[in-house]
């Protein structure tokens, strides 16, 4: 009973987590534009929280570069269910123009299950809003079962040596 009651509100208060997994940041700008006065996503209850633990919609852009893989999966697993993943932009859906490049991985659905794909190279803010509205419908049907990321396709080493490779820029 209470469950049913609470379920109704999922749709009304979707909080966003945005992650750029290697996009050209065109899509990211359009997401910003969606939050801005003209499209004002907040009227749908959307808040850009920047915190996976308090988010419902995982809005990803970019084709997933080799270095973004772990971060993508890590953020995904830190989000509590029910959650939906929205792939925003052509390169996020399928790799777009980066399809087949050696350091890009042809779309985020290689790593995590995607619920909504938004096409367009730089999708129009209206397309993004449409995608989020569609995601909300899917959100309502989700359960609280833990959703696992897909099997990792690329090799991920335990310690990806983040420390030493960044030193070079840092020690400048």
């Amino acid at each position: 009973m209470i469950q049913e009651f609470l379920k109704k509100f999922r749709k009304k208060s979707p909080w966003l987590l945005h992650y750029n997994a290697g996009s050209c940041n065109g899509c990211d700008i359009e997401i910003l534009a969606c939050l801005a006065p003209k499209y004002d996503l907040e009227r749908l209850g959307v808040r850009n929280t920047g915190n996976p633990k308090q988010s419902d919609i995982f809005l990803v852009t970019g084709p997933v570069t080799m270095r973004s893989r772990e971060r993508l999966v890590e953020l995904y697993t830190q989000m509590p269910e029910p959650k939906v993943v929205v792939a925003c932009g052509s390169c996020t859906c399928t790799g777009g123009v980066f399809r087949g490049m050696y350091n890009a991985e042809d779309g985020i659905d290689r790593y995590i299950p995607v619920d909504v794909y938004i096409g367009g190279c730089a999708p129009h803010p209206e397309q993004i809003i449409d995608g989020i509205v569609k995601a909300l419908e899917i959100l309502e049907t989700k359960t609280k079962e833990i959703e696992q990321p897909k099997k990792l396709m690329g090799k991920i080493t335990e310690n990806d040596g983040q420390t030493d490779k960044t030193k070079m820029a840092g020690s400048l």
Partner: protein
Amino acid sequence: MKTTKELVTLHEIRGAIEGFYDPQIWHFVCINGLFENDELEIQWCFAKIGVKDEWKVFYAKAPGDALLPSLADIMPTARMYEGELRDLLDANFENSVKGMFIELDGLEAPLRIKR
């Protein structure tokens, strides 16, 4: 467009650029690298500030595994390009480490690949 290209050897390069480079007059654009015929060509590109299209390019040729001098002490930004070329072209600059762009388990020296 005035592009002056000057061939230097690996030993001369430091002296040549030290003598030439005045950051107030020349803008250090970047270090460029090519891999052709199993040989590395490294270009240090400069453009004059306030003058239309005047370029100065020092270039040196070296075997693929040569140790290349680092000029990061003269031009701090060179460090970035050296790191980048180390990753993409496997150009072995002094003091540069791998991993700036490409994961250690990723593709080695992609720019040496010929289509």
